[in-house]
């Protein structure tokens, strides 16, 4: 079995989803007219109700068995810091694409992600980054003739 990060039991998701739903409902009341917001707001209310039930489960002993942990036997503990960094790399890539465009973002991201997050040698990272970027360029720009995004800076 491949390694899987162990699942976490925490109250955080409920709070997060609750805030999102609240914001959603508020937006509905502020910006939308009566007719447009009817169904979305109703959905928001139902979601909050479901969240309330989910919260109740925590406090009622008979119901509070945690849903089946799907992470499996080979689950490993992953430090939160590493998870945050892993997510951070995606933010990094997306922002680079948005600002600098694919031609800059892809090689840089690949090199940095493989070398630092992935802890591979700089040589492996460098080669992978260059080769992959060239292949992407050839396939998308030349063969498919899709103009790859050049970022806010260059377009």
């Amino acid at each position, binding site marked *: *079995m*491949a390694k899987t990060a162990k699942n976490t039991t925490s109250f955080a998701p409920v709070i997060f989803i609750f805030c999102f739903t609240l914001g959603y409902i508020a937006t509905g009341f502020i910006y939308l007219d009566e007719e447009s917001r009817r169904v979305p707001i109703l*959905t*928001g209310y139902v979601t909050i109700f479901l969240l309330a039930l989910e919260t109740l489960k925590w406090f009622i002993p008979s119901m509070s068995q945690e849903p089946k942990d799907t992470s499996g036997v080979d689950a490993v503990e992953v430090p939160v810091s590493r998870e945050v960094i892993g997510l951070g790399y995606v933010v990094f890539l997306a922002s680079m694409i948005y600002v600098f465009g694919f031609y800059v973002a892809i090689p840089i991201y690949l090199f940095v992600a*493989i070398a630092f997050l*992935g802890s591979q040698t700089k040589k492996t990272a460098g080669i992978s980054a260059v080769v992959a970027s060239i292949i992407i360029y050839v396939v998308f720009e030349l063969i498919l003739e899709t103009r790859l995004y050049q970022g806010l800076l260059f377009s």
Partner: protein
Amino acid sequence: MIDLLLNALSDIASVKTILLLVLGVMFGLVFGVIPGLGGTTALAILMPLTFGMTAIDAFAMSGGIMGAVAMGGAISAILLNTPGTAPNAATTLDGYPLAKQGRAAEAIGAAATASPLGGLFGVITLLMVLPVAKQLVLLFGPPEFFLLAVFGLVTIALSDSTNLLRGLVSAGVGLMLAFVGYDTVTGGERFTYGSDYLFDGIPLVPALVGLFGVTEMIHLSITGGTVAGDASAVRIHGVMKGIKATLKNWRIVIRGSLTGTIIGSIPGVGGTVATFIAYSTTKRADADPESFGTGRIEGVIAPESANNAKDSGALLPTIAFGIPGSAEMAVFLGILVLHGMQPGPTMLLNNEREIYVLIIALTLSAVFSAIIGIALVKWLAMITLVRGQILAPLVIAVSLVGTYAINSRPGDVVIAAILGMVGYLMLRFNYPRLPLVIALVLGETAERGFLQSMMISQGSWGIFISSVTSIIMVLLILITLGWSFIPGILKSRRAAKAKSD
């Protein structure tokens, strides 16, 4: 009808046409494998190439593309948890766990066998109902669309019996996201904050690529290792096992194929929903539903049978009324027009020959792409042995590029990235992603169906049981609800009784 088919076969049987068909298959496979790109993009990009061709050649190539995309998408779904096309998302559910156990070859073998078989049954079904095509399409109006969407939502939101409540919460969030954008029923811009990008709503393919592909790749990059945990466990020769599994489970193939054809024929609901419902119903009918998601081969067979059958289904409204049954069909209609035909109810009368060529091409394409998939399985399975630290960033990068290539919108990249992160959090906190996805797909259809029905009936709820079709749908929904909740209630009753004894 047989003579029409034979004629079509002889139409295709020229060297040039077969070559174009195979070319289409190659394109279809590649476009299918690259996340984000799919049949729609492939057809759109290759449309200009069909200019100089005869209609028969153009249709042969189109059929080649459409039939192969599903197989290509299945490959990335299984190996990388990244659906190559939206309908392949259901294949990731058990396909990727199989790859993690080193059984990628088996999964690909099963998918490769299910695709042409499912496609074949789909074509047979299509040909059988073709005479009543128009009446069938006319059975579905706003009330039926609404009920169908509810059925899809209920089936899938409740499919994870261990996580019912969280599944419903996911579905709720998915619905809320589905309502973002301009609403054609009420005419309002909703939750867009004035953004031109959000005007068109949260796009489905970037969302899927993010939630399934990017999420798992983030996971892989964090945990390290390889997709298949243990290099020695990768059995590259599992292909035969996979093929046999599909043949043994022919009932699942037929059920999946029927689901694909029926649901694929409903415009706007389409392929993604069809494969998810095929998966869910197979899971539900199984003796051990809770093992689905850990690597059950049936969980690959069902959606992939549906995936190819859906093209036959999508042809139904396309041929009957010229209304595209799917986005691919919409582009295909364009190719049709390009070759001097007019979409509409007269197509079956005037362009019968070309349509049968397409049908044959679709079937042959599924077979060819399956053969290619099986031939390449050894190399494909080796992908699961590549170091995750290299593979994950590569797949994420290619996914984002592919997502951008669909419509040239940088916003799509952002959506894929954001949902990739959200998906990771859902994964870690044990919130099922499936209901969110299905709600995203069906939310608009459900709301539109409901609001329009209310407008047509002037506020009367009776419209939802006013036709045979709608009554059947209501019954289906009730049965599904019952099936989900009653066993649970009975179980707890029995447990309580056992306690008191």
